[in-house]
């Protein structure tokens, strides 16, 4: 069963459940909106009545102790875990506070939601309640709303406590940073004075033929100063580049051509990734045919630069199925005199999906080709593959056919990867006048509306740069960053800036608004390209696609904190809904087990997808042996598991910390997406819950 088919089945199940609900529950839904007489409430007021009692029930169950327990636990954790770097303290504290809230509340609400109905059933309180003009739907929704409100109350309490803790922690952190900076500044002044005296002494010693010692000078950290001045209680807003197409690391950029072209540096860690979004298909007879007749990849690099003769350039190729990343084939190729290389993979059946009569017989999923050049001094021209031109690579399925399969345009170029970041190296003194490596950020023109970007009095907009540095040599020097920016429609009007990198803080850079194009029509604005280079020899700058961003006005930290709390609230609401649904007909232990299982499955989406891919890789494709039967059984079980996972809400998407710990403002669209996701998964569970309680005998 394919991934898409699994989801089609899952959503069909949702649709069927909702349709049945609409058919069965229309009367009860109608009663929700009906007012018995003028001035009296609707069904929603009855839901609220049940919800209030549910809140009272939770309160009577000492749920109010939870914030106190949480506070004690997080305070102990915060006292024990103290990061050395002051700039990481607030994000770490936020992580502890929010994760603590999330887990404590999830567990507490899970238990409460699963216990409430069975207990009322057991104590026959439901008998009294159901004898009142309260529909089963209202009773069910009242329970869900009640526990959600309880969770919301606790979140508000804990959120305000978190804010107080963080505000105090930030105050202390700033004060400590200021004190440390003053000390470092005084040490620095003393060291300078000492160095001056030493240099005077050394010149005297030199005259006598001796040598003098040198005192190390440590420059006080600018990031410390900035931290003491600004603190950490804010929420950044900014525009970033599109994840894959907007960010690349290139060996060199040729501005002489229009548009400027990118080059991959030979002998470096740089690589270029060509993504084939669709299946790489070929006829079965070609795939399983003899070597020499199978499908092959064709590589073409029409332009090369560098001191070496072009034909000596080598390329290392890795073909990898994206759904089964462990499953890959590698080959080292040498470009011939036509700057061309061909490669026929040894195991084509693991890469190519067989296709006959226009139908894909086995779906192996998308494929990535990663290419690097081990030949030092060579620069390979990377073609963007837009409609105007052709990319560097294609697949030829049959030798007699000219129907080549092309990858997606604009292949992604990456460099040396370290801790989820890419690195650009400063100039290497050994390479003489070699071009420096650079990170390219391409901001989409339509996103950059000059009317919405905050401009200063000079008409400049701000680019925020969160850069890390790594010093191999010249450790005493500050790392200098060199930035070039231009609009794609005016590649020759380049703006250049140079500044010292302040590590682990956001560096702000002013760029003129003329770069934005100043057009009202978004399509005429043109992309803004920002190139980032390391100008200090022996240093590296680490960055990722989020590192360079165009700043918008900052948002309130408190509001951002409560957006994260809202994500926790949505997650808990969904869990409560599942818990209450499970507990309608089940005893509380089984209901808890079922709810826990649903939550686990909801966290397993990616794992099960990996298992399914792995099962495909290791499945016996030919056979009619006993192994095949086992494979089919395994595959069937995995398909069923995949279906279960698809039916469950994907809890991994609920990430309350996603923006908060980066001190970034959570976009309302993200919160809206989460709310929509919860609504989408709530509907079938409400329908299911109603169906279970509708005819339940409460006596």
């Amino acid at each position: 069963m394919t991934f898409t088919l699994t989801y089609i089945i899952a959503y069909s199940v949702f649709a069927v459940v909702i349709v049945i609900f609409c058919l069965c529950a229309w009367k009860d839904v109608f009663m929700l909106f009906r007012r018995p007489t003028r001035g009296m409430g609707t069904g929603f007021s009855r839901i609220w009545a049940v919800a209030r009692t549910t809140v009272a029930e939770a309160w009577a169950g000492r749920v109010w102790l939870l914030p106190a327990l949480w506070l004690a636990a997080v305070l102990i954790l915060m006292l024990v875990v103290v990061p050395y770097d002051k700039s990481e303290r607030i994000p770490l504290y936020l992580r502890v506070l929010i994760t603590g809230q999330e887990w404590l509340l999830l567990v507490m609400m899970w238990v409460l939601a699963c216990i409430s109905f069975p207990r009322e059933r057991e104590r026959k309180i439901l008998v009294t309640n159901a004898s009142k003009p309260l529909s089963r739907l209202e009773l069910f929704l009242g329970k869900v709303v009640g526990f959600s409100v309880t969770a919301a109350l606790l979140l508000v309490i804990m959120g305000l406590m978190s804010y107080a803790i963080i505000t105090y922690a930030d105050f202390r952190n700033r004060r400590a940073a200021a004190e440390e900076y003053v000390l470092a500044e005084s040490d620095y002044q003393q060291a300078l004075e000492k160095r001056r005296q030493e240099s005077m002494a050394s010149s005297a010693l030199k005259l006598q033929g001796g040598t003098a010692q040198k005192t190390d000078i440590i420059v006080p950290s600018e990031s410390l100063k900035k931290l003491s001045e600004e603190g950490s209680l804010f929420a950044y807003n900014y525009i970033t580049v599109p994840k894959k197409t907007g960010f690349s690391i290139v060996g060199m950029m040729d501005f002489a051509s229009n548009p400027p072209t990118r080059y991959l540096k030979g002998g470096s860690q740089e690589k270029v990734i060509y993504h084939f979004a669709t299946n790489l298909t070929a006829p079965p007879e070609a795939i399983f045919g003899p070597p020499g007749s199978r499908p092959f990849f064709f590589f073409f690099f029409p332009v090369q630069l560098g001191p070496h003769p072009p034909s000596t350039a080598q390329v290392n190729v890795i073909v990898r199925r994206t759904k089964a990343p462990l499953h890959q084939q590698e080959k080292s190729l040498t470009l011939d005199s036509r700057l061309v290389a061909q490669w026929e993979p040894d195991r084509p059946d693991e890469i190519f999906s067989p296709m006959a009569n226009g139908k894909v017989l086995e779906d192996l999923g998308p494929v990535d080709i990663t290419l690097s050049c081990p030949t030092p001094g060579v620069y390979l021209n990377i073609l963007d593959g837009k409609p105007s031109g052709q990319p560097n690579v294609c697949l030829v399925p049959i030798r007699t056919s000219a129907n080549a399969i092309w990858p997606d345009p604009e292949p992604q170029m990456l460099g040396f990867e370290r801790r989820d970041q890419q690195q650009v190296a400063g100039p290497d003194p050994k390479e003489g006048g070699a071009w420096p490596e650079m990170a390219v950020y391409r901001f989409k023109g339509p996103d950059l509306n000059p009317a919405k970007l905050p401009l200063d009095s000079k008409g400049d907009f701000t680019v925020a740069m969160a850069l890390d540095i790594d010093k191999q040599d010249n450790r005493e020097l500050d790392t200098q960053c060199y930035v070039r920016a231009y609009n794609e429609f005016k590649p020759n009007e380049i703006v250049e800036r140079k500044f010292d990198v302040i590590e682990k803080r956001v560096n702000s850079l002013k760029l003129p608004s003329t770069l934005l194009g100043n057009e009202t029509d978004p399509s005429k604005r043109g992309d803004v390209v920002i190139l980032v280079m390391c100008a200090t020899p022996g240093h590296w700058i680490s960055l990722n696609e989020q590192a360079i961003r165009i700043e918008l006005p900052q948002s309130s930290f408190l509001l951002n904190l409560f957006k994260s709390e809202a994500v926790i609230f949505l997650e808990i609401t969904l869990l409560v809904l599942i818990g209450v649904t499970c507990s309608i007909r089940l005893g509380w232990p089984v209901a808890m087990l079922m709810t826990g299982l649903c939550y686990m499955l909801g966290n397993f989406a990616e794992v099960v997808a990996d298992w399914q891919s792995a099962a495909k890789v290791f499945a016996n494709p030919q056979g009619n042996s006993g192994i095949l039967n086992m494979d089919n059984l395994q595959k069937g079980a995995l398909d069923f598991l995949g279906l279960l996972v698809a039916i469950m809400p994907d809890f991994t998407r609920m990430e309350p910390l996603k923006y908060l710990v980066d001190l970034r403002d959570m976009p309302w669209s993200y919160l809206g997406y989460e709310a929509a996701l919860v609504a989408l998964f709530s509907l079938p569970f409400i329908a299911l819950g109603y169906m279970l309680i509708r005819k339940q005998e409460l006596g």
Partner: protein
Amino acid sequence: MTTEIPAIQTRNLTKIYPGFWNTQSVTALQNLNLTVRRGEIFGLLGPNGSGKTTTIKLLLGLINPTSGEADLLGQPAGDQITRRSIGYLPEETYLYRFLNARQTLDFYGRLFNMNRAQRVRAIDFYLDFVGLDPAVRKRRIGTYSKGQARRVGLAQALLNDPDLVILDEPTSGLDPLGTEEMKNLIIELKRAGKTVLLSSHQLADVEDVCDRICILYRGKLEVEGSIDELLEVREVFTVEGRHVPDELQARMVAMLKEAGVTDVVPGVQRGRLADLFKKLVLEKRASEKSGAA
């Protein structure tokens, strides 16, 4: 001419509790045809397991009938709108233990969509009406005695000023004084034009307050009728009169004996409901035993 809609009407109402895989199923109620007229106090009697509570639950829509129908106030049983006009006191007090009396009644008032002023008024009135000690009204129900909890239960059943009141064992847990008050209250309800369906084992109480009764045995309706009809002893002739001189009484007794009348007992002759109930149950049990033998 219009026909008055009965307060309760059941037609072949049957309830079978299924066992595991439809084995060991239990017939709790079998083809019950019952009519309770508006404004009367109707007693629902029967030994344990006869189907009284099942009948009440079916009438309230708490459980689903296996077959047959039931109407309350002219609407199908379980109708949400009709439940606005029904008050129900369960056999035990099933209330939230963590709420106090006022909070409990406030909750039920909200379920009846009563506004704040109506709720406050009704809560004060009915807590006084059922005689709940004001000192305990703000204590959690979990701390109440059985009698106190029963009074709150009764208050919640009357909170909406119902047209039909269903009382399942209303005097259970009440002291003799409370029982007396409850009986007076039921009579009060009748005077106010309410219909009362009363299920009780306290036959003396039922006899005192009910207009009509029915007796169920093993889910079947055995007897239905007015108290007077059912308790009349036809073979016994009674003459009642005030200030009958002893001499005249003696002469009348002598005349009756002369005429060959046997078992002449001077004084008022009346059967007891308890006797009738016991007789019926014992006869049934005896016939079941002989059938089994």
